[in-house]
């Protein structure tokens, strides 16, 4: 079973990521398993999902906006955002939007070209799970989450930007 980083620990991946679109037959065949569907399939099969045994998450391409699934966030146990290449930064914006604007509180997973040197920024944008690219060392990657002790901006963990905290401390 694949391993990933979740909430700063290395865990077995309990989910199957379906990179290609699936129809209802294909979904039936996956009954009993936890699956992450492409957003297009998730939207298409939305009505049929309650019948699925196992959890159903959704993953978004870099060009797909969280807005499209906003009405149903309550029912989604996991959202994955894809980095087709690590230099494509669109998913950082989607992550912040999901966490800060839309209040999504469950697992937010980075998938694709996920490299240890980007983990710190990803986690500040709200990702709490990282399905790292296969060649990455997970123990080393966890350490990267502590590259900085503090930051100027707000984040999911510290909702106040530094300037609001600093003025109290420094008088």
């Amino acid at each position, binding site marked *: 079973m694949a391993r990933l980083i979740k909430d700063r620990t290395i865990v077995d991946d309990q989910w199957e990521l379906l990179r290609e679109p699936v129809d209802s037959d294909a979904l039936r065949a996956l009954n009993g398993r936890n699956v992450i569907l492409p957003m297009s399939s998730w939207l298409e099969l939305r009505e049929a999902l309650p019948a699925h045994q196992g959890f159903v998450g959704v993953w978004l391409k870099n060009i797909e906006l969280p807005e499209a699934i906003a009405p149903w966030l309550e029912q989604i146990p996991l959202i994955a955002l894809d980095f087709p290449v690590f230099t494509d*930064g669109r998913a950082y914006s989607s992550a912040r939007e999901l966490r800060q604007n839309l209040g999504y509180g469950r697992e937010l997973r980075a998938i694709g070209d996920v490299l240890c040197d980007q983990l710190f920024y990803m986690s*500040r944008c709200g990702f709490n799970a990282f399905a790292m690219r296969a060649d990455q060392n997970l123990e080393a990657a966890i350490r990267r989450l502590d590259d900085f002790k503090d930051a*100027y901006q*707000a984040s999911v963990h510290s909702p*106040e930007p530094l300037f609001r905290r600093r003025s109290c401390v420094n008088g």
Partner: protein
Amino acid sequence: MYRYDNYDHQMLADRIAQFRDQTARFLRGELAPAEFLPLRLQNGLYVQRLAPMLRIAIPYGMLSSTQLRKLAYIADHYDKGYGHFTTRQNIQFNWPAIADVPDILAHLAEVEMHAIQTSGNCIRNTTTDQFAGAAANEIEDSRPWCEIIRQWSTFHPEFAFLPRKFKIAVCGTQDDQAATQVHDIGLFIVRNAQGELGFRVLAGGGLGRTPVIGKEIRAFLPWQHLLSYLDAILRVYNREGRRDNKYKARIKILVKETGIEKFQQKVEKEWLALKDGPLTLTEAEFQRCKAFFKDPAYLTLADFSPELEHALNTDVLFAAWHNQNVNAHKKSGYSIVTLCLKATGIAPGDITSEQMRFVADLADRYSFGELRVTHEQNLVLADVARKDLHALWKALKSQDLHAPNLGLLTDIVCCPGGDFCSLANAKSIPIAESIQRRFGDTERLRRIGKLSVNISGCMNACGHHHVGNIGILGVDKKGEEYYQVSLGGSAENVTALGDIVGPSFAQDDIPDVMEKLIGVFEQHRENEERFVDTYRRIGMEPFKEALYGKAD
């Protein structure tokens, strides 16, 4: 100027440790070059023609004498004894070894400097008017705002992998000296009818391959909302900016393709979601930042100084320099002095370590220990008592830093070009020199008057050639270095992009070309008109005719 507290110091220390680890992994072969690339770029490290190049941030151009001495130290120990000031108020070193860079960064951290986000597809160093806080015609000191933007943009987790680089300029004076309109975001500090402070916001400006003047997307943004609004613009850009083509990836293309109104609506929509949230600036934070830029301990002095008057009447060379390089100050008895780093035969913006130390001492002695770097690649001592001007000038003269050509034809803005840059089509430094040699006569230069010449070695436009009154662009013509000339550009209040005159010229022809252009100007000039105004009045034809003969 801004001083670091424990938070700033800690972040910088963490950053250096991070980059030290990344560099070590790269040198051990554990980090692929393509994966190291954006990491090193965001720490200012390019790999150039001859060696790596390190670009160090000088936030909004403010530099202390201590910092300048540190730069001199770095020039001596890690480079070849000189540095190069850029058009973005930064400094570049052309010869450091990659393995030394973490140590250089540690040295910089000691004096609260760094190379963070000086390159790469992220938010770059924010720039502003080099006279901020001292100018006679200021609306509001832009530096507290620049510092607020610096902190917001530094290590911004959402915007480290934008489609392309992103540059913000802030202007708080009446005469824009920051080329604000050709930045991705241009912020003009304004007051509304009620006297409240805010920003007029421009977006989508930029030079490079497709030069564009920024368009207004908000006439008045109350200052409290500055950061949430910037977040909103950047988010729209991060999402929708083109990533399929590097040359279409700047925000200017997005704004153009989306249309300004639609773009504006998208920003407003994002902004509504962020507005009044934790990013809303507080009076306390504004005051905290403002306090760093308090006036220095000015003396009470009269504008009239008998010493100065005497020197001006007896020393013609000093008077010429005074006339050209000294500007009005908001405080009586004080002046703003620009040291033109444009002596003939020296690459524009270059400065030796010896000169750096010398200038640092002068700053301590005459200008409260502070300096500014200008986007025209010069240095400014912003708070000099008028009675000290003559002594200062004599000191500058001893180090060849007294070029009296600020704003004149030989105050050329020039990129490193083919001598250093791997992207160049042509050399640019020798072109600058050939022009300076031809127009060596100071009397004549002064008669010609205010005229900006900008040279870039390729269409990336690092030398801002589009906004030069005379712009010179290196092009490749069947493997030979040629130069395309444009006229009428300006980065001032009436920002304009230059018009190309016609077919390009060989390197050796450029001084003659300049001579002909100046000839036409002198022939048509009315009164004390500036070159750019004559051009605007008479148009391209007379210049074209002088260069290429009559069209028939």
